[in-house]
């Protein structure tokens, strides 16, 4: 399916139009329960995101990059992944984490600035969030190389923004992937901004998908607010990767509905009208229309979904806030496999001044 949409011809893969009407030749044909699962994951993601913003305003959580508008990208991609696939995230991936089963309490913990939330639970193939933009991309390729070397039938996914495509690491990573035909799926959330810099000032290529031409593998642009399109493209790219078909670049065309982070004020650099226009393309709304047409959505269902999402989120907050802050020992414990004497001495010195607050 991916090959039918050539970014050089300006083609974009979309299954649902804004009214939720599907293109039947492309519909991935998911069973009803799975369709509802997609919706529920998106709803959870939105609820968890809204809660993080609220916690931040209350001083209970640190600087936070909201995900609103990206639910279809994140849930569509993660839902297509298998348990054995690997994921190399960036910093705006809430729906990925929720869908892949990362405990939300741990995720909140991290953004609360507590070391205790840093450890990916065993059994989850999720690398830690990369804050330096683009730096996770060559790492994902290395994991792909390792998978190939070990003959594992898995795919390795990495996500990043439109801004990240300007970094050298994007280029070096994708070039490696092309040369070694690694089982990677490169998923760009093109949300039109890198903080204040609009996509058109980020790169002069008409699409991001077409950058794959430079690396000798396919690239496709999908409607990032259409969860079915994201799911279908991801599923195909992942399957292709797993069977040794090489990497794919997916550009999800979407919009960052919120500020860049809670420290940002997007009103400084973009118009209300633009934001409003994208409100109409809301991925949840669109999918709700689709489910409605299929008789899978009504008000009662919506209420149950929202209630469940609220409970899910509140439980996570309670759990995260109940955990103590990391101890000094914990902060010093993971610099080396075996802590050298110097460092042990520093810890001992510091404990002489222990307690809360800067000393």
């Amino acid at each position, binding site marked *: 399916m991916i090959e039918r949409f050539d970014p050089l011809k300006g083609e974009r893969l979309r299954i649902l139009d804004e009214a939720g009407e599907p293109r039947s030749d492309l519909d991935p044909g998911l069973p009803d329960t799975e369709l509802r699962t997609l919706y529920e994951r998106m709803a959870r993601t939105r609820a968890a995101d809204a809660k993080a913003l609220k916690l931040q305003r209350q001083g209970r959580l640190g600087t936070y990059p909201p995900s609103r508008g990206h639910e279809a990208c994140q849930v569509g991609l993660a839902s297509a992944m298998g348990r054995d696939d690997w994921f190399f995230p960036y910093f705006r991936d809430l729906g990925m984490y929720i869908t892949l089963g990362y405990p939300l309490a741990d995720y909140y913990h991290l953004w609360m600035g507590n070391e205790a939330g*840093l450890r990916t639970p065993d059994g989850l193939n999720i690398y830690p969030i990369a804050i330096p933009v683009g730096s996770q991309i060559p790492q994902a390729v290395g994991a792909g190389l390792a998978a190939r070397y070990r003959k594992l039938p898995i795919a390795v996914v990495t996500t990043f923004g439109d801004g990240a495509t300007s970094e050298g690491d994007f280029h070096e990573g994708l070039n490696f992937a092309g040369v070694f035909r690694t089982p990677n799926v490169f998923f760009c959330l093109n949300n039109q901004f890198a903080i*204040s810099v609009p996509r058109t000032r980020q790169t002069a290529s008409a699409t991001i998908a077409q950058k794959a031409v430079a690396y000798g593998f396919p690239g496709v642009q999908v409607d990032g607010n259409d969860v079915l399109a994201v799911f279908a493209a991801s599923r195909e790219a992942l399957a292709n990767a797993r069977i040794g078909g090489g990497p794919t670049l997916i550009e999800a065309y979407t919009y960052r509905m919120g500020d860049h982070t809670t420290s940002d004020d997007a009103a400084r650099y973009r118009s209300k009208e633009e934001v409003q226009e994208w409100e109409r393309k809301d991925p949840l709304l669109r999918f709700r229309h689709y489910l409605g047409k299929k008789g899978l959505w009504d008000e009662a269902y919506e209420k149950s979904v929202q209630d469940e999402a609220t409970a899910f989120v509140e439980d996570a907050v309670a759990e995260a806030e109940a955990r103590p802050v990391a101890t000094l020992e914990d902060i010093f414990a993971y610099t080396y496999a075996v802590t050298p004497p110097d460092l042990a001495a*520093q810890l001992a010195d510091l404990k002489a001044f222990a307690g809360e607050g800067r000393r």
Partner: protein
Amino acid sequence: MIMTMVQAINQALAQEMERDDRIIVLGEDVGRNGGVFRATEGLFDRFGPDRVMDTPLAESGTIGASIGMTALGLRPVPEIQFMGFIYPAFNQIVSHVARLRNRTRGRFTVPLTLRTPYGAGVKALEHHSESTEALFCQIPGLTVVVPSSPYDAKGLLIASIRSDDPVIFLEPTKLYRAEKQDVPEEPYEVPLRLAAVVREGKDLTIVAWGAMVPVARQAADAAQAEGVGAEIVDLRTLSPMDRETIITSVKKTGRALIVHEAPKTCGLGAEIAATIGESALLSLLGPVMRVTGQDITVPLPKSEDRYYPGPERVLGAIRKLMEV
């Protein structure tokens, strides 16, 4: 006018750009957005997109492009959004910025001033609290500057921009809005390569810079109450270092304490301690002490405060020093 450090920096940039149209400000979000700390606020409207350039998200590209601008006589002032994101540009800085004057026997110089927020204070994510100044202090050809007050920030930034050498100008995020000060309206230079004795004392010398200067002051005030007179040397230019001012002070007091945010091992404190040992050994009444960040990755915000030196740890060191 009474202003914060970030306002002083903003004013310095505006005045220098006004004076000299070879000066170009560039970096991520420095234009329409005015910089994530608002250090470049208003410059885009005033000087336009050709002089205040929002760059693509690419640090090596930004510094590389800045270098190329100098070939045609411009004087770029690139901003790296946080010091933790300077590493992708490390090759351009070490291999080219620092060396081009030498490589061309002076035909090409690189009079750029690379500004970047530095050190702890914003309590943001990992990588937003870096103080790796020693990485740059060991690179011949670079000048490394850290202001500790609004007044110095303006004067040192103007001096840096006017300098024909490349300057790494590190702005302590903690101090951006911590303190206001009366800053002269007209442009002025605070000379580079000159440390300042910002507090006099006869019993010991504290060497500090940036956000550690106020910390040292607090500790020194507390020590005063205990009858100990601490002299504070604010290094200001970290490299090339004003060793003379340090040595003069230590020869007077006989005791030395260095305070910095960076990890201890191979921090700039090591060089200062080594210098004192080389040049003032016979004046020393006791070992030179270092109060520093720990030899670990900066912890996340909730634990950040436990990592950096605060007045209590500095005071503890003062007391220990005074025991000998």
